[in-house]
């Protein structure tokens, strides 16, 4: 699997994805009102916001599920126009959804390669379309080892795994095939604390391999534990981008709900010495 992921990985810090002036209206409702986003390789950017702030709309634009009315998306500096998630995926953008997107009765290796199966080399693969199961198992095992994600056996049915391990399989699959960035939409929402922890570790391992990660989460402790930068959305726009080092959780939540403006937060920091 690494033969897919490694060669095209961007260098750390390079801007992978930009979105400028994204507008999306539904009738009289403006879901996105000139939203912005910048994402660098090797970082986790958390996108947070109250309900209706436009974070899921923005993410859907980035993964191709929603076509914006105005604005521009740049991938590695090149303008792109996704008409479907498949097109985004072909350009190296993978998305992990909140509900577990796995086929429970199939084994881990099959799930990792679902939709992108490897065929045997030569006649068996070309004419008889035979799958190369040993190679898929090997690659899957090596890849999971690389991510230090521990699983009972690569041939175990996914339904025999815990919830955290199952979501881990979905995350690992996305990361394995993403060449540029992975979007995680509430990846731990369905999981318990310890289970969620396994997935967080996995996301960290994915970032450390040089991929860019966008994390959407309501879970502030998770966001503060994992994110390098936090983008706060409000009323369809980017309110500000902060870091977990500069701001406290309560300041971030106050800005998210509109109780505090970014300027006030900065002034309070200057006067009171922050946290």
């Amino acid at each position: 699997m690494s033969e897919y992921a490694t060669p095209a990985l961007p260098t750390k810090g390079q801007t992978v994805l930009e979105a400028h002036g994204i507008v999306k209206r539904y009738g009289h409702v403006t879901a996105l009102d000139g939203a912005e986003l910048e994402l660098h390789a090797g970082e986790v950017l958390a996108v947070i916001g109250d309900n209706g702030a436009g974070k899921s709309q923005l993410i859907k634009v980035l993964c191709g599920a929603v076509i914006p009315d105005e604005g521009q998306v740049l991938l590695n500096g090149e303008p792109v126009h996704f008409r479907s998630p498949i097109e985004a995926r072909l350009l190296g953008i993978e998305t992990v959804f909140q509900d577990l997107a796995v086929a429970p009765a199939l084994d881990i290796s099959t799930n990792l390669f679902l939709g992108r199966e490897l065929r045997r080399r030569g006649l068996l693969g070309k004419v008889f379309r035979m799958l190369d199961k040993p190679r898929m198992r090997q690659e899957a095992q090596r890849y999971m080892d690389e991510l230090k994600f521990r699983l009972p056996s690569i041939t175990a049915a996914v339904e025999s795994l815990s919830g955290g391990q199952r979501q881990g399989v979905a995350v690992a699959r996305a990361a394995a095939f993403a060449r540029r960035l992975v979007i995680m939409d509430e990846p731990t929402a369905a999981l318990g604390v310890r289970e969620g922890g396994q997935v967080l570790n996995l996301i960290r391992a994915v970032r450390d391999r040089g991929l860019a990660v966008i994390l959407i989460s309501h879970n502030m402790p998770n966001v503060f534990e994992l994110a390098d930068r936090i983008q706060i959305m409000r009323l369809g726009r980017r309110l500000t981008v902060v870091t977990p080092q500069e701001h406290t959780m309560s300041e971030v939540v106050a800005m998210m709900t509109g109780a505090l403006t970014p300027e006030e937060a900065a002034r309070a920091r200057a006067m009171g010495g922050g946290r």
Partner: protein
Amino acid sequence: MSLSLTASLARAPQAALRVLAKPALGALIVLVVFSACFAFTTDTFLAPGNLSIIIQQSVITGTLAIGETIIILTAGIDLANGAVAVLGTIVAGRLVNDGYDPTLSLLLMLALCTAEGYVAGSLIARLRLPAFIVTLGLLGILTAATRLISQGGAFPVTDELLGWTGNAFRVGNAAVTYGMVIMFALYIAVWYILTQTAWGRHVYAIGNNPEAARLVGIPVERRLVSVYVFASFLYGVGAWIALGRIPNADPNSMQTTSLDSITAVVLGGTSLFGGRGPLFGTLIGALIVGVLRNGLTLEGIDPLWQDLVTGILVIAAVAADELSRRRGQ
């Protein structure tokens, strides 16, 4: 009673569950137990000639059940496969009897059956209608169509090519028909497709979690249509095999065949909820029904008991599937 004995007794149903959870294994055990019973209590059950008869009697259901298995694996169902095969026999029979070329008639029969699958698949996959209702409707339409085409009555089909599948060669004392050979070859070919190709993996994935299949980029609708098309092509082959078994095109034949094929699929351990089940289990399921019918007849027991025993087995198989699925969640 000692503690350890109590403990192992408590574990016994667990162990039984685990065996039943291995879908095809449970079916195989049932098949072997029934066969052993009949082998010990009659002289003729194990005679090569009798074994050949059992397989010949199972060959139509066994072939149609291959298509039914693939469809049920996608969490669908097909109530019309018997009617599709009957339509095939009637159309091919009429064409040949009206003087058309036998090869052309055979190909037209296969094409017609396959086209029916395209219609069913499109209604189910693209319009998202429930498979149960679509195939129930098609069952009515096709039954009416066969009666209209045949003008209500059965007629003999004596063409050599259409009846070729009934020809036999001898292996020792047993007669092996070409229909049997075709059926076994189809099982091997379709087993290969289901387990060794991406298309097969996708069939299981779609039945397992269609949303996940869509998210990973499997063209779910196209795959579903192809499943119904392929299954219906197999029904066409089943129609050819049926003409070899009985050289007669009868609009009233095969009325229970779709239910029989669903029985075989379920007995073989394929889940009606889709996504899990071994194809060879279906062959075993079809043989269980054949062995029961044949053995009870040899014993001199009213073959009506076969329906009763089959009914119990079907419920047991579904219960085993349900329990193993619940444990998996």
